[in-house]
């Protein structure tokens, strides 16, 4: 082990060395997400900006695709991070994991270049195979889809074989089963049909059952590990909570899929099933808040890694408000008829993806950087602590400003365009020109700049935190960290 505060791979186990590679690409893609979000946001205020060069559709696609991929890279990195700790043995087939990392990263670069330079193709199947699938969130061309499946299978092999060889903890068991579902569901989005209803029906299997089910369980696993690591919470307690969360999450989320089946041609019984089960979806998120806050309080906020703990708490609340409250607000069909496809959805999407997922990956980035610097001190009175505190503050301030701006625009749109105007072309632009909408979009952009400032500070902090520390990390009482 090298000296405290010095960044060295000698401080990491095999899985963790691979994890920091994934984390590095994740942070770069997070930056890309912020950049293309800013460009798309500017286009709402000034539609001539980059018109014909980087149109809104390209910026928006890059904005959401960068998000999906940086979160996936963050999740994969986080799992490699905890894998040897949890299983007690070195990662099985690590060379494959390393190879796949480079292939995956190279594929992402190629896809981004094609998005930027070629953008659209002729209306033929070959465009879908080579350029752009044109389906929100899973725009990646088919060749990349197949690549993603291969990468995820290799990742799954690493995880499952390592746990099988070593210790199968509760966290490990949930993780392995969840990864099977996560990889399997992606297949539902990998085929073409001219029937838009059928297309949307299966598309939601990927989008909903990832974002509102399997990703949630995955962050549940990460939170369990994070709480054990940062506060030394007893494993039995976090694992019991994890099982409760899984029961509630899948119990509400699987049939909650129905709240996307109100208006796409699917039968009317989804009104009842989708409305009822999706209304229950916030319950597991309440459980996660209770769990995290209770544990933090129980340990009197004494943690070995204050920035990570702060982001874990931010995750608990962000998940509850972003996914839970903001989702519940427009989940019942009686209101969704008017809010569906408006900025209301964008408001929910921003807060939910940030609150539920970005926060958890950031917590892991801080857990990783601490070990990477040789287990450096990261508790109270940390040298240069202003940076992580201002970063978390600015990122939240920016996000909340964006979310409120979009929400007000969405309120206005659902009234003027949907309820009164009847959603035709005139009604749409009447709503877009309304001053409440324009003001909402202006404040969204202000929020975007604040968020971007927070991102820059976060990236700077991740590169420097602990560098000038000479104290070792605090230790938990040994009894609490055991199995």
């Amino acid at each position, binding site marked *: 082990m090298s000296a405290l505060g010095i960044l060295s791979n000698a401080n990491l186990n095999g899985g963790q060395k691979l994890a920091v590679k994934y984390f590095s690409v994740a942070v770069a893609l997070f930056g890309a997400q912020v950049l293309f979000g800013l460009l798309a946001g500017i286009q709402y205020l000034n539609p001539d900006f980059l*018109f014909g060069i980087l149109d809104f559709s390209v910026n928006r696609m890059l904005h959401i695709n960068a998000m999906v991929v940086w979160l996936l890279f963050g999740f994969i990195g986080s799992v490699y991070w905890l894998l040897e700790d949890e299983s007690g043995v070195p990662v099985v087939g690590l060379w494959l994991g390393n190879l796949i990392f480079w292939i995956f990263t190279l594929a992402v670069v190629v896809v981004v270049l094609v998005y930027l330079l070629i953008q659209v193709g002729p209306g*033929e199947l070959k465009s879908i195979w080579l350029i752009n699938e044109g389906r929100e969130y899973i725009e990646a061309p088919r060749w990349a889809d197949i690549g993603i499946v291969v990468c995820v299978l290799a990742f799954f092999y690493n995880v499952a074989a390592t746990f099988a060889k070593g210790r199968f903890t509760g966290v490990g068991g949930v993780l392995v089963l969840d990864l099977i579902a996560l990889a399997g569901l992606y297949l539902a989005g990998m085929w073409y049909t001219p029937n838009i209803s059928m297309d949307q029906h299966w598309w939601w299997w990927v989008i909903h059952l990832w974002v509102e089910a399997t990703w949630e369980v995955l962050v549940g696993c990460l939170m369990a590990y994070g709480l054990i690591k940062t506060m030394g919470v007893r494993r039995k307690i976090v694992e*019991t909570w994890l099982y409760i969360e*899984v029961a509630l999450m899948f119990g509400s989320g*699987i049939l909650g899929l129905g709240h996307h089946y109100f*208006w796409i041609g699917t039968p009317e019984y989804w009104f009842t099933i989708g409305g009822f089960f999706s209304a229950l979806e916030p319950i597991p998120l309440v459980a996660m808040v209770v769990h995290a806050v209770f544990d933090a309080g129980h340990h009197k906020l004494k943690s070995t890694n204050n920035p990570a703990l702060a982001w874990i708490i931010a995750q608990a609340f962000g998940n509850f408000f972003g996914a839970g409250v903001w989702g519940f607000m427009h989940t019942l069909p009686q209101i969704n008829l008017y809010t569906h496809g408006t900025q209301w959805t964008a408001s929910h999407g921003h807060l939910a993806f940030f609150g539920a997922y970005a926060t958890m990956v950031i917590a892991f980035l801080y857990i990783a950087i601490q070990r990477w610097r040789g287990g450096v001190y990261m508790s109270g009175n940390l040298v240069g602590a202003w940076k992580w505190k201002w970063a978390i503050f600015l990122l939240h301030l920016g996000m909340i400003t964006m979310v409120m701006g979009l929400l007000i625009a969405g309120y206005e749109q659902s009234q003027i365009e949907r309820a009164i105007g009847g959603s*035709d072309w005139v009604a749409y632009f009447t709503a877009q*020109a309304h001053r409440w909408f324009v003001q909402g979009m202006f404040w969204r952009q202000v929020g975007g700049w604040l968020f971007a400032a927070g991102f820059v500070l976060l990236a700077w902090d991740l590169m420097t935190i602990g560098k000038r520390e000479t104290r070792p990390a605090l230790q938990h009482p040994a009894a609490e960290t055991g199995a």
Partner: protein
Amino acid sequence: MAQELWWASPSFWRKTAIWVTGFSFVVLIFLTFDTVKQITAGSPRVPAYSVINQRIDYVFDEKRNFQVPVVGPEEPLFGQKLSEAEAATLVNHGKLTTQAKNCMNCHTLLGNGSYYAPDLTKSWLDPSWGSKEVREQSMVEFLMDPTDKLHNAVGRRMPNLGITEAEARATVAFLKWMASIDTNGFPANFKPIDQADAPEPATAEPVADAAPVQQ
């Protein structure tokens, strides 16, 4: 230590998680079989592609208490009646075009996509196309080169995506077919273009001039 409470034990919650997940998944599978059957093209909810040979309207249904698509008399697209296979080929080409041109990253289809441009679910029926006589041609011309057409007063324009005439006609076919899907009343309160048989007076204008202007 006191005896462990059954409701606080990991094994109880592990079993609960497995049973709840399994049960929910089985229910979802059953519902999926039924739903897929009901949304297969050619079913009452999602008509066969040859529906583009007929007039499609969107009318309030007293019994269901929302607007539903109504398939009317014969009104072939571009004046040419197509067989089921020909219609399917045309709609398929249109769907491929909407994907290859990345329509969903500005527009919404069935309410899903992006929010930078109008929803296309009932765009075939949009009154802004002027009259049903000029609608098809206006749509084709608009798709092929939208940049010089008047869109709105907020300054947002659709870029020129290099859409060929064949792709534009196919896209119009796809949009007409999509308008026939029973979307449970979404969008609500939509006022479709007048498609009555009596020709409209000459005031009806193509979209380029009739597009809304906001202050």
